[in-house]
C-alpha cells in the first residue's frame, strides 16, 4: 500500500498550492471525481483476491475520508480569506452623514399651538375654526362692541370695507358656533388674528386660542379651575396663577389671568416689569347680551370664555425676547425647534 502513502503525499502537496476555491474544485475532481484517482482505486478492488479486499478497501476509504476532510477544511479557510478581502475592500468612512439626514425645524408658534390644542383636547374640548377675514358683525357687533363704542379702541383694526375686517381676535368663532349649535358646548378656536399695529412688542398678525364652555350650570369657579389646570399643564404644576378684574365687552364678570413670572419667580425683573406677574390670558363669564345675540336663553345657560396669545406663551416657554423673530423666518432661529 505504498502507493496510497505516495498518493496522500501528492495530495497534500497539491492542496498546499491551492489558493482559491476554483483550484480546490479541480483537486476535488482529480481525486474524488467520477474519473478521480480514489474512485479509480476503489474500482480496482474488484481485481484483487477476495481475501485482501476488505483490508485494502478500508485503507482506501480512510484516505478518501481524509482527502474529503482536508478539502472541506481548506475550502472553508479560503472562503473566509476571500470574504475578509472583500470586506476590507468595501470598507467606508462610517462617520459621514447619510443623505437626507437633515431634519427641518418646526415653527415654535406651531409647536406651542399644537401643545395648547392637545391640552384642551385632553380636557374634553373640541376644536373649531372660523374665517380670518370676518364680518364686522361677528368680530364686533355680536360681541357687544357697537360701532361708536370706546371698546373698539382696544383693537386697532385692518378694514377691508365698511362691513368686513381682518378679524382682530378669535372670539367671532364663539358666535358662529353658538349660532349653529345648542349647548352644551365645549371647544377651543385657534387661529391667526390681525391688528393694525407694529412695533418692538407688536406684530400685525399673531395667533390666539379662544375657548368657550356653555352649559346650564357653568360658574366662575369652574372658569378658574379649567384655566388653572391648563396653565399648570402648559407651564409647570407649581406656577402661581392669579385672576384679577378686567373688562371685555363680551364677558361679565371679566378676568385677566396672570402667572407668577417664570424668570424671576416673582421677585421682579425686566420681563414682568418688576411686578412679579405676567399677563397671560383674558377670560370671563359669557355676557348675557352675547347669548341673546345668538338666541340662547340667558336665564337657562351660563358659560365662560377665554382667549390667549400664543406668541406670548411661546416667548415665555423658550425664553424668546423679541416677538419679531417669529416672522423673520430665519433658519438659524427655526432650526432650534
Amino acid at each position, binding site marked *: 500500500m505504498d502507493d496510497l502513502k505516495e498518493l496522500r503525499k501528492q495530495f497534500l502537496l497539491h492542496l498546499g498550492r491551492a489558493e482559491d476555491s476554483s483550484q480546490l474544485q479541480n483537486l476535488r475532481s482529480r481525486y474524488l471525481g467520477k474519473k478521480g484517482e480514489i474512485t479509480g482505486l476503489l474500482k480496482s478492488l474488484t481485481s484483487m483476491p477476495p481475501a485482501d479486499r476488505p483490508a485494502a478497501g478500508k485503507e482506501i476509504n480512510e484516505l478518501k475520508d481524509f482527502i474529503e476532510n482536508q478539502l472541506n477544511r481548506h475550502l472553508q479557510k479560503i472562503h473566509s480569506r476571500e470574504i475578509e478581502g472583500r470586506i476590507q475592500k468595501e470598507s467606508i468612512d462610517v462617520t459621514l452623514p447619510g443623505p437626507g439626514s437633515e431634519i*427641518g425645524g*418646526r415653527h415654535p408658534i406651531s409647536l406651542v399651538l399644537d401643545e395648547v390644542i392637545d391640552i384642551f383636547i385632553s380636557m374634553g374640548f373640541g376644536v373649531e375654526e372660523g374665517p380670518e377675514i370676518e364680518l364686522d358683525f361677528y368680530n364686533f357687533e355680536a360681541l357687544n362692541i357697537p360701532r361708536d363704542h370706546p371698546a373698539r379702541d382696544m383693537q386697532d383694526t385692518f378694514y377691508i370695507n365698511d362691513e368686513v375686517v381682518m378679524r382682530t381676535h378669535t372670539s367671532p368663532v364663539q358666535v358662529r358656533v353658538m349660532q349653529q349649535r345648542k349647548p352644551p358646548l365645549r371647544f377651543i378656536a385657534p387661529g391667526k388674528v390681525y391688528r393694525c399695529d407694529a412695533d418692538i412688542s407688536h406684530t*400685525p398678525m399673531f395667533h390666539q386660542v379662544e375657548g368657550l364652555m356653555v352649559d346650564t350650570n357653568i360658574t366662575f369657579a369652574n372658569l378658574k379651575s*379649567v384655566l388653572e389646570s391648563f396653565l399648570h399643564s402648559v407651564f409647570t404644576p407649581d406656577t402661581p396663577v392669579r385672576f384679577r378684574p378686567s373688562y371685555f365687552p363680551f364677558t361679565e364678570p371679566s378676568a385677566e389671568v396672570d402667572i407668577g413670572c417664570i424668570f424671576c419667580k416673582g421677585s421682579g425683573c425686566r420681563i414682568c416689569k418688576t411686578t412679579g406677574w405676567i399677563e397671560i390670558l383674558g377670560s370671563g363669564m359669557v355676557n348675557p347680551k352675547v347669548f341673546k345675540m345668538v338666541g340662547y336663553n340667558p336665564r337657562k345657560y351660563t358659560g365662560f370664555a377665554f382667549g390667549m396669545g400664543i406668541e406670548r406663551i411661546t416667548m415665555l416657554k423658550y425664553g424668546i425676547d423679541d416677538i419679531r423673530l417669529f416672522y423673520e423666518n430665519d433658519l438659524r432661529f427655526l432650526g432650534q425647534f
Partner: protein
Amino acid sequence: MLLPFNWLKEFIKIRKSPGEIADMLTMAGLEVESSEGSGDDTVFDIDLTPNRGDCLSVLGTARELAAVTGKNIKIPRFRLPSEDKRSWIRVSIGDRDLCARYAGRVLKGIKVEESPAWLKKRLELSGIRSINNIVDVTNYVMLEYGQPLHAFDFGKLVSGQICVSTPDKSIRFTTLDGIERLITGDMLLIWDGNKPVAIAGVMGGLESEVGEDTTGIFLESACFNPSSVRRTSSELGLKSESSFRFERGIDVLNVDKALDRASFLISELAGGVLCKRVDVFPRKYRPRQVKLEYAKVNNILGVNLSGTKIQDLISRIGARVEDFDDYLHVEVPSYRNDIENDFDLIEEVARLYGYHRIASSAPVIRVDALPKSKVRENIKSIRNHMCSRGYSEVINFSFMNPDMIRLLNLDSDDPRNNAVRILNPLRQEESLVRTTLVPSLLENLGYNFNRGIRTVKLFEISKVFIDKRQKSDKLPGESMRLGGAYLVDRTHRLWKDNVDDFFVVKGDIDAMIKKLTIGNGLWKRSSEPFLHPGRSADFILGNRKAGFTGILSPDVLHLLDMKVHNSDVVLFEFDLDIITVNKDRKHVYKQFSRFPFIQRDISVLVDPEWSAQDILELVKSYKSKLIDEVTVFDYYSGKNIPDGKISLGFNVHYRAYDRTLSDEEIDGVHNDLIGFLLKKSGAQLRQ
C-alpha cells in the same frame, strides 16, 4: 391715566404705602401699570378699561379705593364767593339726545396770568402742559372731578346767546390748534348766536380762545352724548382729554359741582366777579334700577354668599340698596354708566369680594368621545413629513406685496389676481391679502440665502384668500395651502448624485401624497407662468388641480435679489382642502397572491411627447389579470439612442392568485402586451 398719589390722599384717608395701594387698585381692576416716585410724590400710571370712565379722575379713583377698602371718601370743601344776580348769557339746547345738560357761568374782571407753582406741578405730574391760570384750572378740575370744562373769552361772544345744536349744512371751522376743519351735519357744535364757537366735547374754537388780554370768560360744563362725541372725534381725527372722557360717559349729576369748583379756583387765582350760574337740564334724571337675585350671584360665581354680604358689597360702590329677602333692589349711582344689568352687579360683587377668594372648582361635565378631525390629523402628518424630509416650517404674515404678485406673470384671468385689498395697510408692501404662498416663500428663501445659508428648504401651511368679486359674497374664499421652497447649493453637497432637484422635491411630495392615501392622482406638465415650462408639473386629483411643483423660471429668478449659481430654486404649493379631505374611503384589507411571480423587462424608444406615466397607464390598461405590478427602471436619452427619442425601461411582474405561472404561459401574454404597447404608442422596441 397719570395720577399723583398725594392728590389722591386729599380725597381719601389712607395710611398704606403707594405700592400697597397700587396693588389694591390692580386687583380691583384698575391696573396700575407703573408707579414712579417724583420728589415727595408718587405718580401712578393707571391703564383704565374703557368701561370705567368714572375712574378717569382723582375723585373717581378715590371712590373706587373707598369701595375696595370699605372707607368713605372726603371731597375737599370750598366756599364759593357770592354771585352777581345777572347771568349775562342765555343757553338753549337744540338736541336733547346729544346734550343732556349744559351749565355755564360768566366770570368778569379776571386777570389772565401764569399759574402758581403748585398748580403747574400737579398738571405736569398728570402729563398736562401749563398754559395760563384759566385754562389750567379747567384742566385741573377735569383731572380732579372727571368733568371736562371749557373756557370761552366772553369778550369774543357777541350775541349773549349760547345754543347747542348741529349745523344745517357742512361748514368750515378753525379749532384751538389752528387747523381749519370740515364740520358735517351730524357734528354737535356750540354756537354764539349763529356763529360756531366750539365742537361740543372735542375742542374749542380759535377765535374765542382765552388769551393774555382776556378779561371775562364764559365757563362751560356740560354732558354730551358719548357716541356722538366719539363719532365726531374719530371722523375729525381729533382726540382730546375732553373727548376721551365724554366717549366713556361722565356723571351728569356732577356737571354743576365741577363748574362751581372751577369757578371757585378761578376767582382765587384770577380774581373777578362770579355771575349767576346757568344750568339747562331738560330731562329729569332717573337713576337706573336693577334687581339682583342672590341665587343668581351664587350660581354665576360658584360661591355661597349671604344676602347681607352681597348687600354690603354693593352698597360700597355708592349704590342705594333695598333688601327683599331673595333679591336686592339696587339704585345705580349716576357716575356708574357701565352698570346696566344684574351681570354688571355680579361683577361688582366678585370684584369687591376678591377674585382670589372664589375657590376653583372643576366643572361637572358629560363625558363624550369627540370625533377626530381627519383634516387636522392630515395636516399634522404633512407637517411632520415635511420636517422629517428636512424642510423647516415658516409662518408669514398673510399680506402680499403687489410688486411680488406682479413678478409671477399671472394670466389676467388667474384668480390669484383677485386679492383682497386692505383699506388701511401699515405699508404699501402689505396692502394685499395673500392669494398664494409663493411670494412670501420667495422672500423667505432670499432672506436666508442672502445671509449665507446654503441649504434652504422651507414649507408653510397657511390660508390664502381669493376675493370672489361678487356682491352677494361679502367674505372672500379662504383655503388652506401647503407651500414650499427649496434651494440647495450644488457645489457643497456631500453626495454628488445627478438627480435633478425637481425630482428630489417631487420625491418628497410623492411620499406625502402616498401617506395621505388620497387615491390616484396624475402629474402633468405645469402651465404655471413663473415656473420652468420643461421642469414643472401640476398634480391633478379627480379633475381638479391640487397643486404644482417645479423649478422657478430663470427669468423670475433673475428679477429676485439673489445670486444663485448652478443651483435651482424649486417651489411647490398644494391646496390642502383638496388633498386632505379624502371622502372617507373605507380602508379595507385586500388579499395578495402568495404564488411566485415571473418578471419580464420591456425597453422601448418613444417620442418625447410620451411620458413615462403615459406608458405606465397604457400598460395598466392592458387587459390581463396576470399583471401584478409595473415599474419604470430606466429613463435615458443621448448616446446610442436615435436623436429626439427617449428610451424607457419597464419591469413587469406577472402573478396569479390561484396557481404558479409557467414561463410558456407568460411568454404568450408578454409578447401580446408588447404588441399592444407598440401599436398604441407608436414606440419601437429597443433591442
